[in-house]
């Protein structure tokens, strides 16, 4: 393990909220508004951290544990995901399963905390979150399995190192399909349009926001920061897949990767500005479509059907 492997998590911890700013700026540009400052997310976090918290009498320790466990799981997940050719600090064979389970753990505690409030409103959001993520998870895992078979490595760092222009050259079809799958998972897991709108608080449609309505102060800051880290983490999977350049110089690689992340945030803003949100009943079809594409990628890869 060398020093450069600590750079990806460090970048994630410092730059993750910036992505939200970039996305919001892009959306503002499309809407013809000036938009919030790029560093708005940092200001929000700082503001929330200085506040106190209020807990309802009917909640138990589960409600308090929700944000902490969620953030902890995201921090652990950040330590697993490599960026721009740098290995992640923690990497072992099969760590992509741990990544999926950490996402699941964070989700479980968010859902439990939402249910713990006893509000039917939050229960509704919890139900939606569980339903949609149950469909997004097989897509994520099948996609990652297809790439790991393609690159012959079952750790995220290994996959990231193995992807090169050469791999894209002879099996670009599989990687392209997986990139699309990861993009759909990225949109769904981060509650983005077309699955969910992070800006509106319309009770009929929101998924993630409804579950955190009763959190305030530092707890809410933890949740927001955790969400930003999740955005960064899933984003860096996509960037690692579609930017196959490794120069061997950590500084250069990381600059390219961070530029890729910013470009992804801009792309996210463009998607959110140009697409309408899907009807609630249509979301499962989108996610099953992603599972289908991942299945196609796996089938194409299997036995080297694509030579």
């Amino acid at each position, binding site marked *: 393990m060398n020093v450069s492997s600590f750079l990806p998590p460090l970048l994630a911890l410092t730059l993750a909220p910036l992505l939200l700013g970039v996305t919001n700026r892009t959306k503002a540009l499309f809407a013809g508004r000036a938009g919030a400052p790029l560093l708005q997310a940092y200001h929000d976090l700082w503001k929330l951290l200085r506040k106190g918290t209020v807990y309802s009498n009917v909640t138990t320790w589960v409600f308090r544990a929700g944000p902490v466990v969620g953030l902890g799981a995201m921090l652990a997940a950040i330590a697993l995901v490599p960026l721009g050719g740098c290995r992640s600090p923690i990497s072992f064979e099969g760590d992509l399963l741990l990544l999926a389970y950490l996402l699941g753990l964070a989700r479980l505690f968010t859902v439990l905390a939402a249910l713990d409030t006893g509000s039917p409103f939050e229960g509704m959001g919890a139900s939606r979150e569980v339903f949609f993520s149950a469909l997004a998870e097989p897509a994520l895992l099948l996609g990652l399995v297809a790439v790991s078979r393609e690159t012959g490595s079952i750790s995220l760092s290994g996959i990231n190192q193995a992807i090169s222009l050469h791999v894209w050259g002879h099996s670009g*079809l599989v990687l392209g399909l997986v990139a699309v799958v990861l993009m759909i998972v990225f949109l769904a897991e981060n509650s983005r349009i077309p699955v969910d709108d992070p800006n509106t608080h319309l009770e009929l449609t929101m998924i993630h926001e409804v579950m955190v309505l009763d959190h305030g102060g530092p707890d809410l800051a933890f949740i927001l920061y955790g969400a930003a880290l999740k955005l960064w983490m899933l984003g860096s999977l996509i960037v690692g897949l579609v930017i196959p350049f490794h120069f061997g110089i950590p500084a250069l690689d990381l600059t390219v990767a961070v530029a890729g992340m910013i470009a992804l945030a801009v792309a996210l803003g463009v998607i959110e500005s140009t697409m309408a949100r899907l009807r609630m009943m249509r979301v499962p079809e989108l996610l*099953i*479509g992603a*599972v289908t*594409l991942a299945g196609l990628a796996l089938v194409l890869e299997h*036995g080297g059907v694509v*030579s």
Partner: protein
Amino acid sequence: MKSLIDPLLVVVALLNLAMLVTGRLRACIRLAAWQGVALGVLALPLSHDGVGFRLVAVAIITIALKGWLFPTLLLRATRTADVKHETEPYVGLAASAMAGVGMLMLSVWLGSRFELPVPTTSPLVLPMAFFSVLVGLFLIISRRTAVMQVVGYLVLENGIFIFGVAMAHEEPFLVEMGVLLDVFVAVFVMGIAIFHISREFDHIDVDQLSTLRD
């Protein structure tokens, strides 16, 4: 040119999957049209000895028939027959998609089991041919509107076409054209039939056709 084959076959597969999850009739017809265009282009890079006149003719006729004429006929049939906009599936769209994955895996397995006397140009040819045939059959049995049955028939025929194109240099030109002509007549007749059915009855729901009597 050879490197075009695999992407085109994957495009065909993706269009199959898209047709399984599309709830809109017109969108489905357009997807079938794009599949026809993809098949026409597919005829070009398959030959072992360069692009000859025969293959160009097959490609042009295929694109003209499958990519333009059939969809135009079907779209006109939907307009004149005043069909509803939905495909009205018996099997839900999400379940159709999962069935699509199942059919894909089955066809890849089948493709790996078959031994052809002639070497195919790409290992994807056979699986994708089977996949299109299966999806076509599935569309025929799982959709309620008569127009979707025609679309399913077209997809099924597209599968047979892939199979035929894979052996384009073994197969006489006339056979190819004969098949295309058959399909053309079939779609023509079906279009007219749909039109007449819709004029006699106020729907083209095939579920209700079974209760017809004189």
